């Protein structure tokens, strides 16, 4: 089930990507990607116990198909 409003935004952004220079859309996209990754890094720096628990989950996940 896809939210129609979200889908409309996806289409608008994809149209922007299609019709603009790669450097232009990627500069904006990178702000989203890099800030999310940096937030996660900061989160794990602050909360090493949670990092440890997530790691354990990854190890268990590796055992499932």
């Amino acid at each position, binding site marked *: *089930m*896809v*939210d129609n409003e*979200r*889908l409309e935004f*996806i*289409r608008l*952004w*994809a*149209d922007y*990507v*299609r019709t603009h*220079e*790669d*450097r232009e*859309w*990627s*500069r*904006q*996209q*990178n702000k*989203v*990607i*890099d800030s*999310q*990754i*940096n937030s*996660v*890094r900061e989160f*794990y720096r602050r909360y090493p116990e949670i*990092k440890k628990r*997530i*790691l354990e989950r*990854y*190890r268990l*996940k*590796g*055992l*499932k*198909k």
Partner: protein
Amino acid sequence: MEWVDDYTIKLDKELSELDKLLFSFLQVLRKYTNYVIVSGYVSILFGRARATEDIDVIIEEIDWNAFQNLFKELENNEFWCINASEKNAFSLLEEGLRVRFAKKDEIIPNIEIKFYTSLAEKIAIENALSVAIQNRTIRISPLELQIAFKEVLLASEKDLEDAEHLREVFKDSIDEEKTEHYKKLLESEKKW
């Protein structure tokens, strides 16, 4: 972005943290085996405005000796395996399971590798597209197969949005007949 030929797309994008991580991983991986990138990162590579915790890479099977060398070289390049030791990692791969590598001291984002086990994964490797970005070339799944995979097999809200993004960005080049063909193939694999 532009199609250079039927199997090559040229991208002149600025690199994100995800791109840099992947390129540094592939610099090592490509010495040992053939690979193809699938799933969410393919949509992200072409502009989808979201991050991901992992990048999925399907590889051709390698033997224990080659894997040991790959593992060592990844470690020398500041990667570590987050879900298994060297020996266990190889056993997981042999069982058709996934092994994840991240930069040292990190767990997200990570790169997930697995040996190809299904017909769809074999098709993805054998028919991979090349994407040229800043003097590098990476191999990704055919777009039609990616769309079919996300719409038929995964089908979560995020996956359907990824598929829609690819459909819109490549609206002039997606071969709908091919997408339908892949959908039928995946439906039949699903039944098994």
